[in-house]
């Protein structure tokens, strides 16, 4: 029985257990449900969880452990001279045994026995069954494959029997515990809580894992390139490192040009996005009638749903050439990919982000403050300028910082619109490049994983992560302080 089928069966048993348990609980109540400690469904869940959980956990645990067990079974069958060979060769033998074992599974036992006795070519026989072998297997490989098959049969039947047994045991034991006084609700909710805690642990652990793996690769990088050459150098020239090369070709990995490009483009984007987004938010929350708001707000938020690659395409094929032609017409040299192109298009992308966050913040300013100002004879615009916006300012700052951290991490637009030349220039009509662009370009193509040319991507990624994390934490704390102020 496959794992999937087994799991489905266990779940089905759980469903049945639920039905039986609720019936039983209803009986126990003697017709008066208030005699029971918990509501009927809790008794059902109680028994169902006892039936399903232990069995299912066992199946999952075994699915994780099985490959390791099987691996050691195979290893124990290998002759000593093979084990002393290089890692890659052992792995090759390992996988060939897996293939042979797979092939044997497709033969009936009699076919197999006949084939082994008559020494017919296994390559031909298994080939006819759709399993391709490179060379005629040696005796120890055949033995190991047979052993492997015996163990996996054992494992398959064993796990099915044990899991079903466990389900039955859980069902019977929990049914016995079913009395009117059983605190089924408390037990069930404890299990639910454990599930929730488990889910959040997974989220936290994965984040930690990601950071940790980045950190490891970054440390590798800094073993090859000293940190000051990364953080303080103004030259980005990683050179090329092809697969198979020794990876010692000395490139220069200066972060500063990329940091500059990232910062410059983000600033241009914010200069575009913040005024427009903020004014749009003010219009929407203070002036727009309900009807206008119900139409315009979703439309603005639709902008936020456009994949950034589409903005990138827009920058690449429309806005960039437009700027270049416009520049040519008035005699100003503009390159098709430039700070301005990328920043402007990224700014458009950020408008809905800024406006919807600011809109929330402005709406959170209590109406009583507006009333107080209007009641003194202030006009609407005086009220907005002098009361609403100052009150909303911390929240707006938070919104801008969050937008900034998105701008810094944005990849697709800059890949297509900013260029790939690592310049430090203040001229917005020149191409620059960003950390994200370089991460992409250092990791695409045919590459040697251990070279600094590749590893630098992780150092860049970790730097980017640190910057945006810092910005986000600061922004969230600003926004939170603002919320506390008014709630």
């Amino acid at each position, binding site marked *: 029985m496959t794992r999937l089928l087994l799991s489905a069966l266990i779940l089905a048993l759980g469903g049945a257990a639920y039905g039986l348990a609720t019936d039983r609980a209803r009986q126990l109540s003697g017709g008066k449900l208030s005699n029971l400690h918990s509501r009927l469904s809790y008794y059902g869940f109680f028994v169902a969880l006892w039936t399903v959980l232990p069995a299912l956990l066992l199946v999952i645990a075994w699915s994780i452990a099985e490959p390791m067990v099987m691996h050691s079974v195979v290893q124990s069958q290998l002759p000593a001279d093979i084990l002393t060979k290089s890692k890659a060769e052992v792995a090759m033998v390992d996988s060939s045994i897996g293939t042979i074992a797979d092939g044997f599974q497709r033969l009936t036992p009699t076919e197999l026995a006949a084939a082994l006795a008559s020494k017919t070519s296994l390559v031909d026989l298994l080939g006819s069954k759709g399993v391709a072998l490179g060379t005629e297997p040696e005796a120890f490989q055949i033995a190991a494959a047979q052993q492997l098959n015996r163990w996996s049969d054992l494992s398959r039947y064993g796990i099915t029997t044990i899991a079903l047994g466990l389900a039955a045991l859980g069902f019977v034991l929990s049914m016995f515990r079913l009395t009117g006084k059983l605190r089924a609700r408390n037990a069930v909710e404890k299990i639910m809580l454990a599930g929730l805690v488990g889910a959040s642990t997974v989220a936290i652990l994965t984040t930690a894992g990601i950071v940790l793996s980045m950190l490891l690769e970054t440390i590798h990088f800094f073993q090859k390139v000293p940190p000051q050459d990364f953080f303080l150098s103004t030259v980005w020239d990683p050179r090329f490192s092809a697969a198979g090369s020794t990876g010692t070709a000395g490139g220069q990995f200066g972060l500063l040009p990329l940091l500059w490009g990232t910062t410059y483009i983000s600033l241009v984007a914010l200069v575009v996005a913040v005024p427009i987004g903020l004014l749009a938010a003010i219009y929407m929350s203070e002036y727009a009638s309900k009807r206008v708001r119900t139409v315009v707000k979703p439309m603005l938020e639709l902008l936020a749903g456009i994949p950034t690659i589409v903005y990138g395409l827009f920058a690449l094929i429309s806005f960039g050439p437009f700027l270049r032609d416009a520049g040519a017409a008035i005699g100003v040299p503009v390159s098709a990919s430039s700070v301005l192109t990328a920043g402007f298009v990224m700014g458009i992308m950020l408008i809905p982000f800024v406006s919807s966050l600011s809109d929330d913040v402005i709406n959170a300013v209590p109406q009583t403050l507006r009333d*107080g100002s209007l009641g003194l004879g202030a006009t609407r615009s005086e009220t907005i300028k002098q009361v609403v916006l100052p*009150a909303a300012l911390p929240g707006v700052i938070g919104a801008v910082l969050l937008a900034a951290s998105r701008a810094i991490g944005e990849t697709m637009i800059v890949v297509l619109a900013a260029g790939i030349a690592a310049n430090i220039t203040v001229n917005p009509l020149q191409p620059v490049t960003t950390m994200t662009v370089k991460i992409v370009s250092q990791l695409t193509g045919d590459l040697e994983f251990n070279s600094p040319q590749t590893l630098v991507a992780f150092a860049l990624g970790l730097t980017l992560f640190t910057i945006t994390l810092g910005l986000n934490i600061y922004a969230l704390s600003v926004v939170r302080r603002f919320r506390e102020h008014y709630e």
Partner: protein
Amino acid sequence: MVAASDASVLNGSGAKTLTGPGAHSGKISARDVNVFYGENQALKSVNVGIPERSVMAFIGPSGCGKSTFLRCINRMNDTIAGCRVTGKITLDNEDIYDSKLDVVQLRARVGMVFQKPNPFPKSIFDNIAYGPRIHGLAQSKTDLEGIVTASLKKAGLWDEVKDRLKEQGTGLSGGQQQRLCIARAIAVGPEVILMDEPCSALDPIATARIEELIDDLRKNFTIVIVTHSMQQAARVSQHTAFFHLGSLVEKGETQQIFMAPTDKRTQDYITGRIG
């Protein structure tokens, strides 16, 4: 949003006196005022006159429309989407719902103190200076300081805050905040002050101070106060109007309303049988 029933009376045509039931020639006069929130009618044909330089109290059970009527007097209802006012309200015989009237000027003349103190998140000084600044009432900095000081003194808050004018207004206690809001309203130099349950969040001592203050303000201002406390209405007001289910049931001198109400509902309310 807002419609005046008949705008035939031009601004400043003070010669026209209003007659009819309840239309006293006072500072403020309302005739046949109806207010609708969407489909719901919150006020039904309210007629009342509010005499100058005195205190008028609005009493009545919760939801009867006291706040709604108060907000009509300085057109704060304009800010509520779906609120519609018909009928006529005059201030010094000018129709305040006339399309030629500037609502900003009206609110400068008719100030409002809200039920919940709502100081701006600014310094105490700036809270008071806010109104004078937007209306350009002060020629110089000393002028402005003079207005702020005088307003705080009139509101009975000066002694408590004179050394901390730069601190945030929101950092004051509830009672202080309410007096700050009163000072803020006074600073603009209004003719009428509308107060919506100004003491509902205050302790008896702060309440007593504000009642004293109202009594004091009466010399210069016309005051309308909404209150749920019969005792407070009896203490501070000269005239009282009783609202019930959106109608103005009875109005008159406070003495007469409390001693000899003519309507059964008024009698029931002030003796605590409805409400």
